[in-house]
């Protein structure tokens, strides 16, 4: 059986995920997305993975959500509150969502996962650091290169070519 903390966390996570997609203002939407990501970090804490939880908090809530918030603020004001969508596509989307939830949910409930519980002690997070520095160290280096190249790519994409330094007014 689930406990109260789990129930509260799942209501918070899924509720704010729906709010993030459905609320009119994009700014409130990104704050709701922040709450969803923090809820996922709470699930990681429940799963005895404190290192992943803190990583999630620092990367998602600390950087990605703030990045999204600033991008939303760069967009014109009426576009933030503008909400155009097809009625028919919306109902089809809700139907697809419910069908996915029910279908995959039924399959999972019917599978043998139901009886899976564990009493074994959780993995020590020192093991993760060991993994990173021994077996996964090439992957870590590749990941660092990917991050660096994506940051350079994002800067190149978002740069304005029509403004030179002497034209700047500030």
């Amino acid at each position, binding site marked *: 059986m*689930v406990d109260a903390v789990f129930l509260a966390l799942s209501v918070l996570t899924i509720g704010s995920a729906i709010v993030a997609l459905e609320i009119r203002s994009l700014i409130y939407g990104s704050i709701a997305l922040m709450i969803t990501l923090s809820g996922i970090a709470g699930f990681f804490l429940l799963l005895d993975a404190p290192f*992943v939880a803190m990583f999630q908090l620092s990367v998602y809530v600390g950087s990605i959500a703030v990045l999204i918030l600033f*991008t939303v603020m760069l967009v014109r004001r009426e576009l933030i509150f503008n909400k155009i969508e097809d009625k028919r*596509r919306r109902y089809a989307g809700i139907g697809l969502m419910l069908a996915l939830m029910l279908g*995959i949910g039924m399959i999972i409930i019917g599978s043998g996962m139901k009886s899976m519980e564990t009493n074994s002690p959780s993995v020590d997070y020192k093991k993760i650091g060991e993994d990173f520095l021994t077996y*996964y160290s090439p992957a870590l280096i590749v990941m660092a290169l990917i991050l660096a190249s994506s940051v350079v790519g994002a800067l190149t*994409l978002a740069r304005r070519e029509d403004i030179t330094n002497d034209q700047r007014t500030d």
Partner: protein
Amino acid sequence: MTNGLIDFVLVSVALLAIGIYGMSVKRNAIRMLFGVEMIINSANLNLVAFARFIPNSQGQTLALFSIAIAAAEVAVGLALVIVAYRMYKNIDIEDFRSLKG
């Protein structure tokens, strides 16, 4: 642990379905990115949940890699949104006509 594996997997399925709904219905480019974020997060939750119940440490390692790659993806995605906004003065994906092949 009082919570079984199935509880976490069900929450992850719900989040996945909401993310797919957001990606398929919303026409706002930033809201579509919200949907992508939710899908990635449900995958991470699955990884960590299965890693807890097996138990091993590789699942958590893979989740950390996945979070870092997602950060890179969002940076590039938001840069693309800004470029498209500068070109079309709009973030409605129906307006990005010349992106259609």
